[in-house]
């Protein structure tokens, strides 16, 4: 997979993940082009389109479009499955996920994606394992915050 984009019906980018090294300028151009092309498509149209030398696989979930670019020889259906699996993961993690969850916790959305895909390849097909890894890392994060808090408090009380 070359990259993944999440954007709203209004064309606002909500998440982007690039698995190929491109300059910011190129990335911006690509996402602008793609968002326009996909938003112009009718709901009844199919989820695949050929774009430049890539295949674009997209799917709309509520107000969000999930869009992946894969190479010519890649399988569209498995890409669709990857998108769906990612949505399922988000849904499990946030509990009935909606666009705002992704906006406000966009870093979490990235962390989940990074546990699921690595370098554009599916690294873990088990939902349970992905969520477990995220949970553990979150726990670690909270511990660090707590630790910091207590250090700071100590300093306040006895400087």
């Amino acid at each position: 997979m070359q990259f993944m984009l999440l954007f709203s019906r209004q064309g606002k980018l909500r998440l982007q993940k690039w698995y190929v090294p491109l300059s910011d300028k190129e990335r911006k151009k690509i996402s602008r082009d793609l968002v326009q092309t996909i938003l112009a498509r009718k709901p009844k149209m199919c989820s695949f389109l050929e774009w430049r030398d890539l295949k674009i696989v997209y799917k709309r979930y509520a107000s969000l479009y999930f869009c992946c670019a894969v190479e010519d020889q890649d399988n569209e259906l498995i890409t669709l499955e990857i998108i769906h699996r990612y949505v399922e993961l988000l849904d499990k993690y946030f509990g009935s996920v909606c666009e705002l969850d992704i906006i406000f916790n966009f870093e979490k959305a990235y962390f989940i994606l990074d546990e699921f895909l690595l370098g554009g390849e599916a690294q873990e097909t088990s939902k349970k394992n992905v969520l477990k890894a995220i949970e553990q890392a979150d726990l670690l994060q909270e511990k660090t915050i707590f630790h910091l808090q207590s250090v700071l408090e100590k300093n306040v009380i006895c400087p």
Partner: protein
Amino acid sequence: MALKIVKGSIDRMFDKNLQDLVRGIRNHKEDEAKYISTCIDEIKQELKQDNIAVKANAVCKLTYLQMLGYDVSWAAFNIVEVMSSSKFTYKRIGYLAASQCFHESTDVIMLTTNQIRKDLSSPNQYDTGVALTGLSCFVTPDLARDLANDIMTLMSHTKPYIRKKAVLIMYKVFLKYPESLRPAFPRLKEKLEDPDPGVQSAAVNVICELARRNPKNYLSLAPLFFKLMTSSTNNWVLIKIIKLFGALTPLEPRLVYSCVHVVKYLGLLAMSKILKTHPKSVQSHKDLILQCLDDKDESIRLRALDLLYGMVSKKNLMEIVKKLMLHVDKAEGTTYRDELLTKIIDICSQSNYQYITNFEWYISILVELTRLEGTRHGHLIASQMLDVAIRVKAIRAFAVAQMATLLDNAHLLTGNMQRNGICEVLYAAAWICGEFSEHLENPMQTLEAMLRPKVATLPGHIQAVYVQNAAKLFATVLKSQEGNTDSTAAQETSQLMIDRLPLFVQSANLEVQERASCILQLVKYIQKLQQKDVEIAEEVNALFAGELNPVAPKAQKKVPVPEGLDLDAWINEPPSESESEDEQPKAIFAKEEPKHSRPRHTEVDEKELARRREARKQEQANNPFYIKASPSSQKVYQDTPGVEHIPVVQIDLSVPLKVPGLPMSDQYVKLEEERRQKERAEKKKKEKKKRKEKRSGRGKKHDSGPESEEDITPAHQVDIVTEEMPEVNSLDILYFVPLADSEKLPVRSHRETPKSPAEDGDTENAALQEPKKKSTKEKREKKKDKDRDRKVYDIQGNLQDGSQVVVSVIFENKGDSFLKSMEFNVLDSLNSKLQRPDGSGPHDGLTVPFQLPPGVSNEARFVFTVQSIIMPQKLKGTLTFIVKNEDSSTHEKLDFKLHFTCTSYLITTPCYSDAFAKLLESGDLKGSSVRLEGVNMPFHHLLARICFHHHFSVVERIDSCASMYSRSIQGHHVCLLVKTSGQTVSIDAKCDEPTLLGNVLDEIKQTFSQC
């Protein structure tokens, strides 16, 4: 000084976090650019600080802005700083930012090499994990070269979590630094057989990608992949492998075959899933699926069979089964054939024979199936035969005829001992012939067949059924023969029984022996009567009168337990403890059998038994192979040189033999076709008529071409026996003497749960509250303008902790949208603070731990810390939440006020009058008083109201005067003396804290002014 810096940084730290930024951007839709530029200025300030937490927060915000399209390349160095933090929290943010913002031309990447190497070797797997994830996004040729070795080591890490990430990232490394491929490949290949499926699939992924670029080098891996393909259950991996083979096939054509197979297999698997939801669409591919039954691969055939099960309908059942029967004939290897057999039966019998329209056809299919050699599923066929014969009354005559032929040709089934499994059907055949013997054309012949000596070679339980049913047949035969003038025929029949039964009396199987000797005795008695010319047939038949009916397993439940019957009570005295326990269960069965059979033998006929013993002794003497207490009698007979016991002829045919006289099921297919044709023709006629009548109306009429499922009327009706079984009505024996009243168990005499005061506004009840119940202060409803959300809250003091108050809030969603991500926040005052979890700032909201679907309410509790309780207080708060609709979601908020009254700090505490008096005498308390005018209610109502609303308890009451007591969570005593005269109530109060007392009295006054 140091204190100031730290304090400053705490405030700064929570100055504006990511959520605030996002919210801010959303609120500045008009001047977004301007707002963001001020934000960026702030971020720049934050980045200048030394505190890493502040920096990480700034970098996190930058990552968001980068997504919105703002240039953040200027902060690259700060990102590296955050990446290098030793805390996972910040490291995670740093790597995320790096993976989003860095690309090959970012020059600071050079600086990261050592940091990444350090993280890769971190003892914490999540540190290593984020480093690998980040690296996968921004790896450059330099990084790849420098870190290739480290990553290769990680491929053999102990944690699968790291291994799979390392394996995947190797692909990126290969792309950037192709020299690394050669040394890393053996290890990568190893990973194809990793015990962890995740690592395995990662390795498959990488090799598939590599092979796509250069297939030739990977041809040698084909066998390994083939093994994976056949063993893996992970669809993702399977798809990848097929793709890999797709890349390899131009070089190795033999692979095509295996690919085709996998695809076929997957296709069938997919179809079976589709079938559950869209049966119609799969049914049209019936022929294709039937073709798959010819496949060489057994797993494909089995899948196809699974599919067929779900595909049958009334219309195609016969056709499908006919095809399956062909396969049964062709099939070699018993496992697959057995599978076919069970599937045929499953298909036919599913949902109470729903799809069978002609049971004669089904019986003949079952009979044909008995020709199978060496199947293990004889009992399955047998149970089907029994089930159909019992439940489909119309078919009985036919079934009996078929079974009689089967019995007659039993030697074909049992001729070979290896075919043992199938002889189970004889069990069914014998029972059906016996039970429904009135349908037999030639009962005498069948009786003869059932008493053949060869029968003794059958398993014991089948012999037992033979003997029992021989008796039934005998009764039928007698009945038909007694009508005749010639009485010799009847006597000859009895003689036949007497001649043949001793064979069974000798059986080693107790059941057979018992039944045989019992029936033999009976027949002998009958014979005696016959010789005296007594008509006996009626009475013999009466032995077997009445129809046996199947009873549903749940039928017993339908019989109500009669009143006064306690099923758990002991009928006899419970066994004494002294009996050894381990012997008990065995003894029940082991002892019972001989108890029943032995004495009866002696009772029945001593002489006969003696004779038999003699005969057996002779036999044993003649038999050199006789071993005492041989478990099976069969061998004995086979080896005995007795005249009777020579097996008739052992026919061992390799070709399945057609049993003469059995109809082939195929003819039913034809017959059925004809029958349907006829029905259809009739229907057409009718329709034509209708059409004529309706000609004036709409011309649109159902085309009679393809018939629909409902059109096919079954030829026979099945008695569908499920829940509606006839109830067994013989329960009279189960009535016992009803229990005496004193013996009855006590049921719900106490356990009336006290009603929660929050739900119950009735003052009457309040006086009855248990003192332990925490107090309710106030109920208040807040209605949102759109009526979307309603909150009721209740403040309770905490007994255990003098400074804690629990507020339970009931959230009710009154709208139609889904509410989620609710955050409850209160603006703390100096005195009262909302308790927040460790690690959150003083202004953070608390997440409400549930979501609210429309119309649902739920309760959440929040703990507040209160320092001084002597003054009432109001706290302002907001509830923010996301309103989620079909395809949009909005962020909304709701403001509210929490009113902490002084009475909410009081806890109902009982007090005895002497303790109360002592308290008043001590002189520590300060007094105050209040007068209430115009109170128009009975005195006890008034007291109850004070108790309920203000958490007091009554100490003593004398006429129109009462003393009351309560205690605050911090231990203040509050004493009241309430007097009433007419409509005036005077309250004299004493408390060790005058301010608190004043406030409480004010609140009491308030309560009564409202009513």
